[in-house]
């Protein structure tokens, strides 16, 4: 074998798919070839480069910037308003599972904004969002689409992502009974667990809202009010 072959082996060794133990021939060659040893040393050096930690608060600052960006968007397109944000958030969640939003929304009317939402360019998509909103679809259409994926998608990953996306619509008062129905119809244990967590989160949210209302309305004995505040503080939602 020539240096060229050994060097290819060194570089390939970097990638998972070729990650076998370095060959005995390579080890022997390295012992006597300074050139290839240098390459190996460089590759090791690259791997040892520090992974600089992101500064404190980066994630928070990003979410603030995102909120500003979205607020600016809804100002220039007032009709996008309330549900552009949840929809974007859902799009991000789905992307993390390797899906596009359109994937979940398949089955919508083909000439509708939903259809354009799943295929267009960025500009197309903005227009489609406006269009869909005017047709008064939005979450109303999103939630059933998500529930449909949860119940029927052959991929576990897709089902779980759809459950995650549902958290975005937590404030929809009609969502609870539908999720409980979805739970009783669910046949995959992993998805059942995720749905149980979601149901629990919704209950806690409702409880927190009730406590907040109680405290706001006043007229409670000091001790009761104190306890209500305490419990509310313990709830994370």
């Amino acid at each position, binding site marked *: 074998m020539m240096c060229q072959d050994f060097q290819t082996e060194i570089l390939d060794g*970097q990638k998972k798919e070729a990650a076998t133990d370095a060959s005995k021939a390579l080890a022997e060659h390295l012992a006597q070839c300074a050139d290839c040893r240098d*390459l190996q040393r460089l*590759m090791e*050096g690259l791997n040892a480069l520090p992974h*600089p930690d*992101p500064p404190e608060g980066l994630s928070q600052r990003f979410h603030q910037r995102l909120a500003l960006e979205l607020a600016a968007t809804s100002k220039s397109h007032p009709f996008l308003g309330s549900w552009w944000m949840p929809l974007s958030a859902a799009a991000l969640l789905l*992307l993390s599972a390797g899906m596009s939003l*359109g994937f979940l929304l398949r089955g919508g009317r083909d000439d509708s904004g939903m259809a354009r939402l799943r295929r267009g360019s*960025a500009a197309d998509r903005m227009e489609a969002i406006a269009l869909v909103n005017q047709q008064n679809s939005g979450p109303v259409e999103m939630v059933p689409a998500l529930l449909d994926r949860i119940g029927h998608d052959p991929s576990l990953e897709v089902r779980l992502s759809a459950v995650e996306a549902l958290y975005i619509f937590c404030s929809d008062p009609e969502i609870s009974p539908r999720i409980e129905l979805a739970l009783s119809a669910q046949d995959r244990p992993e998805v059942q667990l995720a749905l149980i967590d979601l149901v629990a989160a919704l209950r806690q949210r409702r409880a927190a809202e009730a406590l907040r209302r109680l405290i706001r309305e006043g007229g409670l004995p000091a001790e009761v009010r104190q306890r209500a505040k305490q419990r509310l503080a313990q709830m994370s939602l």
Partner: protein
Amino acid sequence: MGLLFDRHYRPLFGFFMNLTRQPALSEDLTQEVFLRVLRYSASFKEGSAFRPWLYRIARNVLADHQSRLQPLTHLQEAEQVADTRPDAHQVAEAHADRVLLGQALSRLPQEKRELLLLYKDPDLSSQDLATIFGCTPSTLKVRVHRAMNDLRSLFFQPQEVTS
């Protein structure tokens, strides 16, 4: 919404840091990448891998930034390299290696630097990299090999390229 961001912002920040060595800039670029992810999510192809797409956007974001601020960035880079040089001989060999490697890297052309920094990432396959750089996997191998050779020249003869 946190999910996607939380999963990917650390490696992405590290990628920008290794390329620019400027924490504030790296944070800014990292944020910009995710805003673009959101803006262009409709252009993401269903069923394809997310990370290659993310890093393609990352390369574009960096290129856009540099086309706006090129002279300044170069100046800052050169200053940083000059600053670290005198210390190199006073510290342990491993550290010296790292400093020299950092210098050598910063002198590689941008595209080669990006290529090597992403090539060393164990979470990106050769196929992912080919997607990011818009070439075939075999072309990619040739390019990695060339970039490594250039890096080697810069690393082992650092004084020749100081100018």
